[in-house]
């Protein structure tokens, strides 16, 4: 519901898991691409965004996004801060409505659903938020039990078993009685992950899951994202800046810049891409299409220097 989020009113390598990477490789020009003549969404695609635009007032956040997310894969959405990656996730989750275009999830146009239909669809989704978004009043156990208690009428003993299984899957069964304030950042993220998969969702969305984590925790989370996706038979969307981890676990990656998709392809292809933006992003170069300096008047004028002084 837009009301709650707007101003008013969620040994790691793919190769090790044997997941096929069978996508065609596409490299795009860094300009909006009109793909309104795309054929109908295929049954293999869980999500399709077609000609999606999104604006906050006069400011365009997304302007002409077209992407497809096939079932069973881990898809990365990468880009600079403020490029519109999280907005894509919120559109897919139905927390925002596109200004133009369509967002189709599991065959349903999510922005046209009623409140009840949207919530019914969300029961099949899980989201890991950037900092976990755990309920601070609840223990770790109660956080993971929350969706089960809200959406099922299972007896307490069965909920207990399910919660302990989910916590065991993320390695935190022993932390069930702790409070969120007693957890490290990495542990909180794992608890949030256990909560997000409590109802065995068909779609998992990860919003910057590696932010602020140490290398070990980052590796653990990356490993869990891939393993849980394959174990649940789910589809995962990974919004991140982390090139190494996302290239290790994603099957396919979209690059978003200034509200449009500027490149897409498998990690191998993107790693060797010649596109200047992709090269700068993947290799962390300080200057390139994304300049080091924010636009400013001439330096000499700001310093009030005269000729010869």
């Amino acid at each position: 519901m837009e009301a709650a989020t707007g101003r008013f009113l969620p040994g790691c390598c793919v190769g090790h898991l044997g997941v096929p990477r069978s996508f065609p490789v596409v490299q795009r020009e860094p300009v909006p691409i009109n793909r309104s003549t795309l054929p109908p969404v295929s049954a293999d695609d869980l999500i399709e965004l077609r000609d999606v635009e999104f604006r906050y007032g006069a400011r365009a956040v997304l302007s002409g996004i077209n992407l497809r997310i096939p079932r069973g894969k881990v898809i990365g959405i990468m880009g600079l801060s403020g490029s519109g990656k999280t907005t894509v996730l919120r559109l897919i989750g139905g927390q925002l409505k596109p200004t133009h275009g369509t967002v189709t999830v599991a065959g349903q146009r999510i922005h046209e659903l009623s409140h009840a239909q949207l919530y019914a669809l969300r029961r099949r989704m899980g989201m890991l938020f950037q900092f976990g978004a755990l309920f601070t009043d609840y223990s770790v156990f109660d956080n993971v039990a929350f969706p089960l208690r809200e959406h099922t009428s299972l007896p307490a003993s069965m909920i207990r078993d399910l919660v302990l299984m989910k916590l065991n899957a993320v390695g935190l069964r022993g932390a069930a009685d702790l409070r969120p304030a007693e957890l490290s950042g990495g542990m909180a993220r794992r608890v949030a992950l256990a909560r997000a998969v409590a109802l065995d969702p068909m779609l998992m969305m990860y919003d910057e899951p590696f932010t602020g984590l140490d290398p070990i925790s980052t590796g653990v989370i990356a490993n869990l994202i891939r393993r849980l996706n394959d174990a649940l038979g789910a589809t995962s969307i990974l919004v991140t800046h982390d090139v190494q981890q996302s290239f290790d676990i994603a099957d396919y990656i979209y690059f978003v810049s200034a509200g449009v998709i500027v490149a897409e392809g498998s990690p191998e292809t993107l790693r060797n891409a010649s596109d200047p933006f992709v090269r700068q992003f993947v290799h962390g170069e300080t200057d390139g299409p994304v300049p080091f300096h924010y636009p400013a008047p001439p330096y000499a004028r700001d310093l009030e220097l005269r000729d010869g002084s």
Partner: protein
Amino acid sequence: MIGMMDKALRHVGHLVVDGIWKLGTAGRFTGYVLTRSADSLRRPQLTLNEIYFSGTLSLIIIVVSGMFVGLVLGLQGYETLKRYGSADALGTLVALALVRELGPVVSALLFASRAGSAITAKIGIMKATEQLSAMEMMAVDPFARVLSPTFWGGVISMPLLAAIFSAMGIFGGYLIGVVIIGVDSGAFWSQMQANVDLRDDILNGVIKSAVFGVAVTLIALFEGYDAPPTAEGVSYAVTRTVVTSALAVLALDFILTSFMFTGV
């Protein structure tokens, strides 16, 4: 000169538009809270938890304040009534002052400072830390799960707190007037019993406190929900809750009093 006037007019225009915009969003917010009430009332435990959060945890400040207000009323009332030889009417004075005015108004002001600020901080932090968004993405409506139960918890708590405040105040007046000063105990209670009307005084006081409960809880919820998701944003929202609630209570008190007790 024209430039300054133009700037001033623009500023006033912005303030008016912003005010109308905020009123509209507050109205829409209230609509959401009320329309989701049925879902939350089907799970009374949620509302009971909020009655504990807003009501039970406010008991100490209400009891202590009620007692002190009653002690002061007893002292001041006795000194004034004595001049007219009507010290026996102390019970009536203390009871009417508390039941009609001080009980609902002072307990609402205290409720706004204790429970209202806590509600705003809770909702504001839940929003800033994406707990409300997480709830939505788990297909749990935060309006039905958190906001509506909090609203009803506040609305139910407020009249109960006002009643406790008045009872403690009357007890304070009794302590000062009867136990310490020596006003006749029989006169104190019998005059109170004879002159305090169940409908005109007590029921109107209960209605007042319920209205204040609705106003204060809605303001607290809306300010928390509308707060920018930053530490500073939540802190300003808490301040606005206390200030806006206090002004709303006093304004509503005037309106309600003019209808209830003066026959306007």
